[in-house]
């Protein structure tokens, strides 16, 4: 599961959705792998305005990545800075969580990631 995907996931428990503590989910005991994905600068420029940057900063720091700038870079900044572009490509699209857990900061429920696939089916008592 890509780091980018984590920016668009939250707890599946209905009561958690209104709580800011449920987003982003917190990676726990995660194994990371890196896939090689063809660079696609246009995709990165275009999706960045739709990424929750504060949540991405939290995720990146929890996964042990170097601290991201406090603000999302603009298209112009990225065009001028190949290194930053490459780092974002690596972080967002190439880095995969292959095994581990994603914990909700509100209810504490942990979702399993297995073979790169996160499972959000809830046990009966949480439905």
């Amino acid at each position, binding site marked *: 599961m890509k780091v980018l995907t984590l920016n668009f996931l939250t707890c599946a428990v209905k009561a958690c959705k209104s709580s800011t503590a449920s987003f982003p989910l917190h990676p726990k005991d995660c194994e990371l792998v890196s896939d090689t994905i063809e660079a696609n600068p246009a995709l990165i420029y*275009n999706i960045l305005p739709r990424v929750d940057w504060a949540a991405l900063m939290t995720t990146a720091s929890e996964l042990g990545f170097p601290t991201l700038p406090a603000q999302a870079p603009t298209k112009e900044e990225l065009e001028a800075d190949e290194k930053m572009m490459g780092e974002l490509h690596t972080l967002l699209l190439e880095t995969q969580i292959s095994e581990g857990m994603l914990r909700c900061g509100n209810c504490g429920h942990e979702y399993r990631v297995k073979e790169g696939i996160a499972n959000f*089916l809830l046990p009966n008592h949480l439905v």
Partner: protein
Amino acid sequence: MNANPVVGTEEAESYEEQHVHEVYEQIASHFSSTRYKPWPIVSSFLSSLRPGSIGLDVGCGNGKYLAVNRDVFIVGSDRSSNLVKIASQSQNQPHAAVVADSLALPHQKDRFDFAISIAVVHHLSTRERRREAVGAVLECLRDGGRALVYVWALEQKGSRRGWDEGGEQDVMVPWVMKSSKKDVGEAGETEKTFQRFYHLYRKGELEEDVVEVGGEVVESGYEKDNWWAICRRPLKE
């Protein structure tokens, strides 16, 4: 074959577990090998999106719609982990897929530019749950975001199944899977038939459900044995 009536929520869940989820889990790879051609209305909806749009494919199955537009980012989800494994394969880059229930989606409200739900809500066994599923998709959309919902139609005069107006809407539909036995001493191919539950929508029913959960129908129509609707949440004043 007619389906059994379902009453309570728990009953509905276990009914769908048996007559939908378990079936897809078992037929996943065979089903996937027959589902590769995107339907035209779905393709044109996806192709019309602005580059960089973020969306959902609720009930993504084998992910056949993930590859249509590579300039957007889609998080697909499906109840069947075997189908999600297929959807997650590399030909569907840059998109993603997770295992989730369409009535308990792991997504924020008001966040997404678009969503599709193709041939999914007709597998829910009560009208209340089908409406809830449409509502769950709409809830994820930001202001101005649009969702395309596609369901099987009761009116299928042209199809070999013989369903039409006035007929039974809750039906079991067989899926025949051929498999070759590998065990020594067992010869040839065997056939196994799985029964899946479907609710066949009559004309106007999908639009009623969209409105019932607070949505607006932007455009709707009929395409080859299916009803579809593009819907959104009403714009705020």
